[in-house]
């Protein structure tokens, strides 16, 4: 059983617990309505975007279908739509060298993919992560969507050695 499926099972337990807790809280309040947890949503980072070791002076691209692509799994409400947006870095910083050692990174119109239900980017829908898109959870039984992202780094010929890092923020709007 995958970790996401375990999370869904945990959610069902949580839902029952939350229902009881909410009811207890409601008993202590005056004329209010209780909030009942029925369905939750989980965004799980399955893999960071990783370029590994890159040659100096040569642009290196990780395709969203590649093993080094970043990947998320989202478990939510069957058949529901969710907007996927990104906050993307333009510069990566060398965390080992002196401040100011940077490397540009870009994301093209085909750098991201989403797929409904199936953990397979090759069968997914390509989209521009700079723009975002609307994805859709799978049908009952597999109410999941997957998202992948790649990108291109352009290390200068005289780039300082070390580890370059940045942060990608993915937002699922439900």
């Amino acid at each position, binding site marked *: 059983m995958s970790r996401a499926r375990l999370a869904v099972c945990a959610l069902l337990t949580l839902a029952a617990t939350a229902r009881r807790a909410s009811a207890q809280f409601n008993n202590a309040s005056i004329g209010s*309505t209780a*909030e009942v947890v029925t369905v939750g949503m*989980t965004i799980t*980072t399955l*893999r960071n975007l990783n370029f590994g*070791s890159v040659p100096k002076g040569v642009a290196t691209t990780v395709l969203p279908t590649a*093993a080094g692509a970043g990947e998320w799994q989202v478990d939510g409400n069957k058949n529901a739509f969710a907007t996927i947006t990104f906050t993307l870095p333009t510069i990566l910083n060398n965390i080992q060298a002196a401040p100011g050692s940077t490397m540009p990174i870009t994301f093209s119109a085909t750098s991201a993919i989403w797929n409904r239900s199936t953990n397979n980017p090759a069968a997914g829908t390509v989209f521009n992560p700079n723009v975002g898109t609307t994805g859709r959870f799978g049908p009952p039984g597999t109410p999941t969507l997957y998202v992948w992202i790649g990108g291109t780094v352009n290390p200068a010929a005289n780039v300082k050695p070390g580890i370059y890092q940045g942060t990608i923020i993915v937002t699922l709007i439900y």
Partner: protein
Amino acid sequence: MMRRLLAGAFAIASAAPLAAQGVLVAPTAVYIDHVRRSSTITLYNPNPDPAEVTISTAFGYPITDSLGHITLRTVAQPDSTLPSAAAWIQAFPRRMTIAPLERQTVRLLATPPAGLKDGEYWGRLIISAKGGKLAVTGMQDTSAVQVALTMIVNTNIGMAYRKGPVTTGVTLSQLAARIVRDSLVVSSHLDRQGNAAFVGMVHGVLVDSTGAVKAEFQGPIGVYYTMDPRYATAVGPLPAGRYRLRFALTTDREDLDPRVVLKAAGARDSVDVRIP
């Protein structure tokens, strides 16, 4: 040679999938009553590593873009004409670390301004969870250039604050359907009625002349003002002939507590679809 081997080993190790990172958020929409003025959400960390979580609020509501896709319109500084509750609903705590397999209850407290008129006020709740930490140690080749990015995941859900009587409804117009290659494409115009968002389900069924179902789609929808949604669903090859699309909006939502979903009559319509 040894340097290359070590660098290669590092690259393989760092490319390996990390332990899954993420936080479960429930429910996926929050409703707060003016009498109670509070609610809760539950966060659960199903993973083996602690999760760093921050919570913030913003104003926004779903709209459709020029392609009919549902997206979110956000307004950083909503003026008095917009029913924003973002400024006066706060989450406690706003920052937390959730241990593995633990849950955290976050309380939402509303402090509405005095003299708030009856109606429904909206906001968005943004739950931000930091992803897995990169393995930054173990780099043996000091001349190598390594590149990796960390991930932060934001879950953006709706919240609504209700004061006094609230009603909702929706009108449906400009229903159109056509076959494009192997897909049924349906578009419509939706107008919200009343003083609260229409939160419900959309359901479309394509039937042939005998009434046999040839395609079907459904999904949740929230109409806050107006919307022009477009749905495309695969139908496969269909013989030439006359078909009928039945399209309906109802307030049946399985994912939300029935007590917070405003009941309304909904709307329905149908339209011919001809395949030459």
